[in-house]
């Protein structure tokens, strides 16, 4: 990135932060971290309120700014023990893992669907939370963060948070444990199991089996191609009676269905959820790798990150590409592909994006 580009970026970020609506509960109790070379070059920063934070960011705009998921009595103290931990939001981090630099931006919809599933199936249904307890944020790059701000979840420790992630990822799921056997008469055993109306993995499993039998009946057993045994089996499941399958070894046949239940894109490796002193991107701040806003999302169904999370920059900028870039849907238009060495006038949000990705230099 050339000097011209760096200067422009500082101006853009500064103007944005001067009027941004950063979404932080109890900012005086949060630790802040900022970075330009890495995402966190400095931490253990604290501010009395949002106004002071905003003034700082407008004068010293970093590429990345984060706040602690935790609330502290003394957020600026070091080491961490001296901060006096008071509790922390539970945050789930979902993102796409990908090797290619630009290809992931064509697949953002899949992680959006997973985020919707996380919210509706796991958090609102299984965990009994309400929409007002959740804050859903586009990460600014290739995924989403979902913050739980319910007071009952704040005090739970690292091991318990890991248990919540394990739940969503289905680690340790033993679907055979959902079943019990009841002897009706000698030699005859009734298989009792979950009903589709139940919450949790039990209900999820029952609903998934019904769906599979309805949509791809022969994937479980050929006999389910006939409506009568199929309907009988489904009718039994609705009552919790799994004995109405006309196949003896029904349990192992259901394993592939159980394997599909968890949510794979929740990021457990980075320890975002487990780490009770984690720093997470401030909602509505700018992501320094893309120039996109880590946008708080009110309506996930309608949200399109590369349209709705762009800085409101008007006009065009002239850039010279330093590598080949594939075509991308950006702000409702298809931009590219572009070749290395090509000089082009492009919309300013897109120019910011490719400059920050290190794929272009600014001409004017």
């Amino acid at each position, binding site marked *: 990135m050339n000097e011209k580009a760096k200067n422009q970026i500082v101006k853009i970020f500064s103007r944005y932060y001067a009027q941004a609506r950063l979404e932080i509960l109890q900012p005086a109790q949060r630790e802040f971290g900022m970075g330009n070379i890495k995402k966190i070059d400095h931490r253990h920063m604290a501010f009395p309120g949002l106004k002071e934070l905003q003034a700082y960011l407008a004068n010293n705009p970093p590429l990345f700014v984060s706040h602690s998921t935790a609330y502290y009595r003394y957020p600026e103290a070091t080491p961490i023990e001296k901060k006096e931990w008071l509790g922390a939001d539970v945050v789930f981090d979902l993102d796409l893992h990908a090797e290619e630099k630009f290809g992931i931006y064509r697949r953002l919809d899949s992680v959006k669907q997973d985020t919707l599933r996380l919210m509706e199936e796991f958090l609102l249904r299984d965990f009994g939370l309400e929409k007002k307890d959740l804050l859903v944020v586009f990460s600014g790059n290739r995924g989403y963060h979902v913050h739980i701000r319910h007071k009952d979840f704040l005090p739970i420790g690292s091991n318990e948070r890991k248990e919540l992630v394990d739940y969503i990822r289905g680690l340790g799921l033993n679907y055979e444990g959902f079943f019990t056997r009841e002897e009706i008469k000698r030699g005859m055993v009734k298989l009792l199991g979950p009903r589709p109306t139940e919450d*949790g993995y039990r209900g999820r499993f029952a609903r998934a089996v019904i769906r599979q039998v309805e949509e791809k009946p022969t994937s479980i057993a050929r006999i389910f191609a006939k409506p009568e045994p199929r309907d009988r089996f489904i009718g039994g499941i609705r009552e919790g009676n799994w004995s109405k399958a006309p196949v003896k070894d029904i349990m192992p046949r259901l394993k592939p269905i159980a394997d599909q239940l968890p949510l794979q894109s929740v990021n457990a490796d980075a320890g975002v959820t487990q780490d009770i002193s984690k720093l997470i991107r401030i909602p509505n701040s700018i992501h320094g790798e893309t120039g996109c806003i880590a946008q708080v999302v009110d309506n996930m169904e309608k949200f399109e990150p590369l349209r709705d999370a762009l800085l409101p920059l008007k006009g065009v900028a002239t850039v010279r590409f330093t590598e080949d870039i594939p075509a991308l849907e950006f702000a409702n238009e298809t931009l590219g592909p572009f070749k290395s060495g090509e000089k082009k006038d492009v919309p300013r949000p897109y120019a910011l994006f490719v400059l920050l990705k290190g794929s272009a230099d600014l001409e004017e």
Partner: protein
Amino acid sequence: MDVEFAVRYPFSSEARKVLQDIEASWNEPAMELGIERIKKALGNKLGRSTAMHREEQLEEIVAYAAARLLLGHVRNRFITNTFAVAEAKRASQYFHQEKEGTLEVLGEELGCVAHREETGYWIALPQYVRFAPGAPPYKLVNRRLQQGKVFVNRHERLRLLEEAVRLHVGRLKPVLDPPPSVKKAGEQLKKIIPPAETPSIAFQTGSHPPCIQQLLEDLKRHENLPHHARWYLAVYLLHTGMVVEQLISLYSNLPDFNEKITRYQIEHAQKKGYSIPTCATVKSWGISCPGCRRKSPLQWQGLRQGGTHERKGKKPDS
């Protein structure tokens, strides 16, 4: 005031009322009682109360409080964790005979509230994850859930209550300016603290996979490890060539260490020659593997899978 309740549950608010009422003081005789209670906990001898008379009952209540004061001063993780486990197991011996009302009172005090229904209880999810033991049947993924509540039967409900006691007892306030009697008792207590057993295991970063490194760190800090974690660590270390006595010595850092049971389990694992599980299996047990992308712990140092007797230069037993 219910002194008998306070004797059974000396961590309760009822016990605190008793102490206030008798204006308990933390003199040397009181601290002696505290030391004795801690010693019983360390020796696995903390059982149901044998107090017959009121004086003896009050002594037991004072003994618990003095023990906690002492632990808050000495701040040794091993003793605190062992004491907390012992007090929790002691309390749980009374749970089974208690009426529902009493269990409700205890649950409220400990933050482990259960709502009864016909066949069991419903517990709020955040409370459930705080107090559920680490064993696989308690994993949230296998439980019955309903709108943020988890279903447990009576036995499980009592087990959660036991965990709640353990966490409550183990959560100490540091005693910053102790009176002379507490300091003196502290010095006596330090003489009976066993030194941390850490047989030489390579602790350099990178010598073990991150999952094993984490478990070893937890052990060093006298943290409790769930069953699968203990088994996995034992199998792994046997594969590295650690002998049974070294392993027993290492496991003596666990707050609920029982040498007989530990020896049996380790010798059994050695005889069976269990294979080191794959990373997928380890992760399914909820064991943390931060930042590791291997498929098997064997890949970490080229450990060969060949039975627990295999060491460099030695053939495996046939």
